[in-house]
Structures are given as structure tokens and as C-alpha cells.
């Protein structure tokens, strides 16, 4: 059996390698050096704890040293303190003494009006005119990933048409457009109790009930619904009822708030049933996803939701405790087996991080060139795998061009692997994950099967893209309303599920959300969404 799976897996690997080879796009190259005058760029970016324990700032990092050599630039740094809550960023902005370049997510996440707001306030430079001339690699990458869908371009360009994400994070093709969080169950337990892998809600109930009756301590390890983004964004369980856990969504193309939908009431009633039967873990309100993983891998729990990268550890730990331990990925639950779900979290390229050029930068052309240089294939490999030089032999490459980390990384006498990666490779400056590396992370047949199950009849058609932007006034009004709403609903939903509030009061609950001004919040979200959709049409 194992031989067969190994063989199957090898064939699969080979197939995918071929596919990826054909899909490989034209090479990206940059003319070096970028400057012969030794110009200086000051860069604002994060500096994590393991780096700061060894380097005084990133300019001592071997990858940066090599970059300076290649580009002929002098790079200096401005680092916020580790775990900055935004205070350092805000005071930097307020001080008016800005670096040349920012690499941060704060303009997108917290600055009023987003990147375009900061451009209007005279903090950031609009790079639209510089990009076509100085950032060919970047533009090529945008075209490659967008493939005419508009998904990438809608994120790259803001509502007013400015490029707001120069050098954002692109996923490697291998992990792009996948569902990364999903439900998994102990395959050996299913077999032991003669159960099929569940698909419908009734089947899920049956499996959990059987687990409970047979003494599985935690039938379903569930984390706190509202605090664990990996969980609530995947809409496990809630998507069966056509709603999100606590978000806006689309219904027939219109923006609505999930809790106002009849489906939400149905779901809460359903979960109340599970809670009464003891199928929901009483500790769930105090659990993080990490906690769930712990009880799942040490054999206490029968089912949980996790990130696919956890499969390796879960199997390793589980099998040392119980040699029969086996994991299988489940389809997201739904009412009828053939139902199509529309609220999955499919992870595409582009996140909230990107490079921004400030108004203090004296040579924006050079700054754009530098960002484009990060998109160069060689630079991308340098940031992902480290220098691989004699002094820092981070990786080896075989005759087929396959790279693997060396013992310098895995068995470094001074640092563990995670720390070594922070010290000798540089993901801060990585604009694209490396395909080769991702393939080495997701290779188990169980992992590939998880991906397969999680995406089955599961799409994100009714999800609102995370990159919609509100303007300054809208975001004020919106967050005023939503902070009150969130405060109210999270508590109430828990009360309904665990029976502290009666389902008869549900309509009053909906009424109260209305009173808090949800209609206005929907309007704002709708307007932002409409602008977002119109972006690619521009």
C-alpha cells in the first residue's frame, strides 16, 4: 500500500514538474549596477527578533550586502521596534522625516484612505508615470498573474487609478489560488467505527456523534470563532448555510451583512443543537488554532480545521503516539452533497504589504528601479535561498537546477532552522515565494489530497475581496458603526449557540444590529465594492 502511494506520488510530482516547466514564463532580468554613483536609499521595513539578536540592522544581513554590491547602492535602514503596534509608524509619519522607501502594510490597513489617501496627504509618490519605463519586470509579473481576470489588476491599482501595490507579495504558482485552511479528520478513526468521510451536515453530525459515543474526548476541536482569522475566513460550517461567520458578503451581486440573513439564524440554531449534544468542544471559546492542532495531533480530538502546512507535523507527532494515526482532508460541509459553496477563502497573490516611495525620496526613478530589481529572477532566488556563497553556503543545486538547503541551514551549530532562515535568507525583500521551495513544503499525498477536497464544489464567488478601499470619511463612519456591531454580535452569537440566550430572541438581535446602523455600513461597503469592480474597467 505504502509503495503504491509512493509510486503514485512520484508520478504526480513528475507530472507537476513538467506542467510547471511549460508554464514557466519569460525570464526577468535587470541591468546591473543600478547606479555607479553610490547613491543612498533609506528603507523602512520590519526587523524581527532573531535578526535583531545578531545584526544591528539589516544592512549587516548577507543578502543585503550582496544586493548593495550588485546594485552599487548604499542601503540604510529605519526599523520599527519588534511588535510595534503602529505607534512607531504613526510617529514616523507625523515627524515628517520619512525614509525613501517604505515596506509595510500600514498604509493599506490603517492609514485613513489607504495608499491613495497618503498620496493626497503628500506623503507618498504616485509612481504611475515611472513604472512603465523603470519597472518592466513588475509589469510583466502583473500580466502573468492577472491573465485577464482583473483580480490582480484590481488590487494593484487603487480606486483613483494610482498604482498602490508596487512590489506586493506574489504567491508562487504552486500555492496560488488554493484553499489553505480546511477540515481534516482522523482517517483511522473513521475506519475503526465503519464511517465514511462526511460531506453533508447530517453526515458530519453522525460522525461526531459516533466519535463522542465511542469516547473520543473532543469530537471536533473548534477554535474561537471570531478571533482566529484562519478559521473565520474559511467559513467552515457557516458556508453550508450560505453565510460568512462575521462579514459582509454578496447575495445576487449585492453587498449584505451575513448576520442579517435567514441562513445565519438557521446556522446558529443548528450549532445550538450540536452544543446541546456536547458535540462542540466547551473549551472552544478559549482555543486558538494552535491549540486545536495540539489536541488533534496528540489524539484527543477526532476532527479539526487547520492550515495544510500543519499536516507534516500532525502526522509526525500523531504517529509517534499511535502508529495507526492517519489524516484525511474533508469536503467542507453542506446541506446536500451536491451543493456548491461560494464563500471559501481562496488565497490569491497580493496581500496588504507593498513597497511605497515617499515624497522625501530625491530620486524616485532609482527607487522604482530598485523595487523592480527585486522582481528579477536572480534577486528572487537570492532572497529565498540566501547567498549560497562560500561564506554562507545556504543551499546546493543539483544538475537539474533543484535547490535544497544545506546543513549550514538545517544543522547550524548556532541557530535552529527557523532562525537560520531569518539570518541568511530574507523574506522581507521577497516579492514572490519560490515555487521550488513551496513544492518541498507541500509534497505529502495527504497534503495534496487536502487541497483537492477543500476546493471541491467550493468557490469564493460571493466573498468580498479584501482589497476594497474606503475613502477617509467612509472609513471613519464605517469603523464607528462596525466596532459597535462587532462588540455586540460576537457576544450574542456565543450566547445563542451555547443556550444562554433563547432562539426566540433572535429577531430582537437582528433588530438591534439594524439599530446600530448596519444599513449605512452596507451602503459604504457597496460603494467601495463598486469602485473596486470598476477599477479594471478604467
Amino acid at each position, binding site marked *: 500500500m505504502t509503495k503504491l502511494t509512493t509510486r503514485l506520488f512520484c508520478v504526480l510530482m513528475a507530472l507537476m514538474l513538467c506542467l510547471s516547466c511549460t508554464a514557466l514564463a519569460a525570464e526577468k532580468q535587470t541591468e546591473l549596477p543600478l547606479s555607479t554613483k553610490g547613491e543612498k536609499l533609506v528603507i523602512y521595513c520590519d526587523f524581527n527578533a532573531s535578526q535583531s539578536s545578531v545584526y544591528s540592522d539589516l544592512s549587516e544581513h548577507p543578502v543585503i550586502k550582496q544586493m548593495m554590491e550588485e546594485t552599487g547602492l548604499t542601503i540604510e535602514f529605519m526599523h520599527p521596534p519588534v511588535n510595534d503596534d*503602529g505607534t512607531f509608524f*504613526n*510617529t514616523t*509619519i*507625523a515627524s515628517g522625516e520619512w525614509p525613501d522607501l517604505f515596506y509595510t502594510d500600514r498604509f493599506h490597513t*490603517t*492609514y*485613513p484612505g489607504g495608499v491613495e489617501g*497618503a498620496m493626497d*496627504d503628500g*506623503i507618498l509618490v504616485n509612481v504611475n508615470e515611472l513604472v512603465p519605463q523603470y519597472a518592466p519586470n513588475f509589469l510583466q509579473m502583473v500580466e502573468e498573474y492577472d491573465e485577464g481576470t482583473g483580480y490582480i489588476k484590481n488590487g494593484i491599482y487603487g480606486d483613483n487609478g494610482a498604482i498602490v501595490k508596487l512590489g506586493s507579495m506574489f504567491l508562487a504558482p504552486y500555492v496560488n489560488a488554493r484553499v489553505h485552511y480546511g477540515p481534516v479528520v482522523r482517517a483511522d478513526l473513521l475506519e475503526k467505527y465503519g464511517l465514511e468521510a462526511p460531506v453533508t451536515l447530517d453526515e458530519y453530525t453522525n460522525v461526531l456523534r459516533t466519535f463522542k459515543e465511542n469516547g473520543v*474526548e473532543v469530537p471536533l476541536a473548534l477554535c*474561537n470563532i*471570531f478571533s482566529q482569522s484562519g478559521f473565520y475566513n474559511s467559513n467552515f460550517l457557516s458556508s453550508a448555510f450560505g453565510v460568512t461567520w462575521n462579514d459582509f458578503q454578496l447575495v445576487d451581486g449585492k453587498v449584505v451583512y451575513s448576520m442579517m440573513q435567514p441562513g445565519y439564524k438557521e446556522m446558529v440554531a443548528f450549532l445550538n443543537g450540536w452544543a446541546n449534544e456536547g458535540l462542540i*468542544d*466547551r*473549551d472552544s*471559546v*478559549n482555543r486558538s488554532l494552535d491549540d486545536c492542532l495540539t489536541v488533534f495531533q496528540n489524539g484527543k480530538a477526532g476532527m479539526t480545521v487547520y492550515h495544510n502546512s500543519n499536516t507534516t507535523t500532525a502526522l509526525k507527532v500523531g504517529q509517534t503516539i499511535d502508529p495507526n494515526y492517519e489524516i484525511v482532508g474533508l469536503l467542507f460541509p453542506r446541506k446536500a452533497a451536491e451543493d456548491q459553496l461560494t464563500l471559501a477563502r481562496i488565497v490569491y497573490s497580493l496581500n496588504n504589504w507593498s513597497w511605497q516611495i515617499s515624497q522625501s525620496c530625491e530620486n524616485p526613478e532609482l527607487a522604482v528601479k530598485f523595487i523592480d530589481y527585486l522582481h528579477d529572477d536572480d534577486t528572487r532566488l537570492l532572497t529565498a535561498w540566501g547567498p549560497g556563497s562560500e561564506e554562507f553556503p545556504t543551499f546546493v543545486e543539483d544538475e537539474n537546477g533543484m535547490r535544497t538547503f544545506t546543513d549550514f541551514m538545517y544543522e547550524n551549530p548556532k541557530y535552529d532552522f527557523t532562525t537560520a532562515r531569518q539570518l541568511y535568507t530574507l523574506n522581507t525583500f521577497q516579492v514572490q515565494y519560490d515555487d521550488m521551495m513551496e513544492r518541498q513544503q507541500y509534497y505529502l499525498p495527504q497534503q495534496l489530497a487536502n487541497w483537492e477536497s477543500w476546493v471541491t464544489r467550493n468557490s469564493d464567488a460571493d466573498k468580498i475581496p479584501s482589497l476594497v478601499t474606503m475613502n477617509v470619511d467612509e472609513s*471613519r463612519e464605517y*469603523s*464607528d458603526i*462596525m*466596532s*459597535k456591531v*462587532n*462588540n*455586540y454580535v*460576537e*457576544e450574542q*452569537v*456565543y*450566547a445563542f449557540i*451555547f443556550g*444562554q440566550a433563547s432562539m426566540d430572541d433572535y429577531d430582537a438581535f437582528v433588530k438591534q444590529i439594524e439599530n446600530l446602523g448596519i444599513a449605512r455600513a452596507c451602503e459604504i461597503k457597496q460603494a467601495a465594492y463598486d469602485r473596486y469592480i470598476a477599477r479594471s474597467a478604467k
Partner: protein
Amino acid sequence: MAHRTLNKRKPWYKLLWQNILKYPQLYLMALPVLLWYIVFQYGPMYGLIIAFQRYVPSKPILKNQFVGMKNFMDFLADPYFIRVLRNTLVINFYLLIFAFPAAIIFALLLNELRGARLKKLTQTVTYMPHFISAMVICGLAVDFFKADGMLTSILVSALGVEKTNLLSIKDYFRPIYVAMQIWQETGWDSIIFVAALSGIDPTLYEAAVMDGAGRFKRVWHITLPSIMPTIIILLILRIGNMMTLGWEKIVLLYNQMTYETADVISTYVYRRGLIQFDYSFSAAVGFFNSIVNFLLLITANTLSRKVNETSLW
């Protein structure tokens, strides 16, 4: 009488100047402390302006939009205002009646210990918890109070409570919080009382023994009255903090199922502030709290001065 007429003729700054000339070293020594207050305590107070503004961090403080009392009204009109105010006061009141006397009783017990080494050891051991970070303590508590946690199991067998996650039951939050606070801080809080106890004149005890007073009588008639001023002053200061309750531990312990009894002013502001980076709102709440605290402090002090002649000023 003569002094008074002298005072009337000379204004205070002249008197001060004379005094400075007379005791220059004393004033020189006080100078750093004075500067510290001016620079770090009074100086930043101008920042309170943001409580009356719609503050955006990217603009200089004075250039922000002025909104008057809006932030204060927002807080007072908030649907959860009464709840968070009640929780803050109730939890602080519990701490006052359970945790505050615990430290005094503990100091008295320590005082009765005979062996000096045993006393030192007990003291050191009881200070320890104070130095453990809130993260660690609360992480332990969350684990111990899970359905299969250690403390839950003990409480199930000892008191017959339901075997479930105790931190998800709203009625248990306050007792758990107060008990944790007592466990962590009693040793530390007792230091000042231990110090006060060591200042009592031993001849008083000797005289009491001669008069045939037992241990309990000695504590009641000598020890307690001697440290009473310390107790009163700490009590007044404590009352002056009734509106303040740190958010760190509560945020780590509470959850959506216990907001009803656990959500206090600081945690509520933390949740609101975290979502919308509303510095003005938090500044307004902080300002409001300080005013109430200040009023409480003055009241407590005045009452105390009238009743038993011990007071801060």
C-alpha cells in the same frame, strides 16, 4: 502672632527665595525630582488636547480637527457604558475587600513567625509570583481552567462544580480574577506593611506581656494601631484608583462568553481602539477616568481626615 504679620507683608516668592538661600543644598537635591515631574508628568499633559479632537496621527497635534466634547459624549452614551463602569467598580471593590486585607493579614502572620530564616524564605517565596509576566500567568490559568484542566478537576471534586471550561462561565470570572490577583500580589503588597511593623517599638510588646496580654491581644492593641496610618494612606490611594483596572490580564482571560461580567473600561477601550485606531476616544476615556479618580481621592482623604486624623495632606 509676630510671624503672621511678617508673612502678610512679604509675598510668597520672596519667602521662597530667602529659604533657597538659606538651604541651597536641599533645593539642589530636590531639583532633579522637580524637573522629572515637569518634563515627564506635567509637560505631556498638553497632549490631552487630543481628547477634544478628531486626532489623525499623521498630522501635528495642533492641526487636527477640533470636535469639542464629542468623544466624551460617545463614551457616556455608549450602550455598554453602564456595564463596563459597573464591572470596573465591582471588580475593584472585590479587590478592595478581599485582596487589600489579605496583604495586611499576611504581614501580621509573617510578623508572628519566630525563626528569622523561615520568615525570609516565606517572604521570598510569596514575592515570586509578582515577577511572572501576565502573559504566562494567564496562559497557565486558561489551561488550568479548561474542561480537563488541573484546577477544574480539583474544583469539580472539591466543590462539585460542573466539569466544563470555567473561564467560559460568566459567574466565575470575577472570583477567578480576584483569586488570581490575591495569589500573585499578596506577598508583594505586604512588603510595605512588613516594613511598618518593623518600626514598632519593642518595649510596647514587653510592657504588654508584663500586663498579661496574649498574642492576639498584642496584635489587636499594639500592632494594628501602630500600622494604622500606613493602612489608611494605602487605602486612600487605593480608592483613588477605583476607576482604573489594567486591561492586560483581563484581555488575556475573558472571552465573548464572559464579557457580561468581565468587560471593564480599559478592555472596552482597548477593543474599540484596536479596531479603529481611535486615539482621541481613548484619551477622552482616560481623561474622564482621571477626573473621577481624582474626585474619589479627595473625598476619601477628606473623610479620613475628619474621622481619624490620618490623611495624605
